[in-house]
């Protein structure tokens, strides 16, 4: 699965994107976040306050409890500030 990070989430994880193979028990976005937080301080910092983290699965906005299903690409980012 491809993971993408934007804005300060990207700065905190230290990478714009990566390919990961998930453990079987990781079936929704929340579980994915919990798993990512075990991978180091950067991830812990990025996901410390989930009120300001948004997610997209295959380029569609989703809630943080959305099932991953057959997701190919999951992205994490702060609330958007364009316009």
């Amino acid at each position, binding site marked *: 699965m491809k993971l993408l990070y934007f804005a300060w989430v990207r700065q905190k994880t230290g990478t714009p994107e990566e390919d990961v193979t998930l453990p079987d028990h990781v079936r929704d976005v929340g579980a994915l976040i919990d798993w990512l937080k075990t991978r180091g301080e950067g991830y812990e910092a990025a996901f410390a306050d989930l009120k300001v983290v948004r997610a997209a699965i295959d380029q569609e906005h989703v809630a943080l409890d959305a099932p991953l299903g057959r997701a190919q690409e999951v992205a994490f980012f702060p*609330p958007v500030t364009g*316009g």
Partner: protein
Amino acid sequence: MIRVQTEDFDVSAEIAALTKARTDVGAVVTFSGIVRDVALELEHYPGMTERELGKIEEEARARWALQASLIIHRVGRLDPGDNIVLVVTASSHREDAFKAAEFLMDYLKTRAPFWKREGESWVEAKASDDKAAERWK
């Protein structure tokens, strides 16, 4: 139409392109967003940006009678006074053009994956933008 680009845009040229050779457009509304006091760096999510903007535009055209519409959003470094975003709506009637342009901006602000950075700090999302988007539900 949707464009994400680093280059500037020209409002008159965009209006002319949208209304060229038509005599059914009576009302054109444009919104230009401009950088205020501090230079910005605009990051986005290529692919998702175009999809979201496309969906927002499609939604506007389902709700209002538009002959044409356009969203341009710039990315990269932008200085004070620079254009950031352009929305253009063309309709036979001014109310549709106005409402659709407001809607496009409200949805773009809350759904299109762009992020602004001022120097080292990321601009925070505004509750007022969420509230503005709520009224279209």
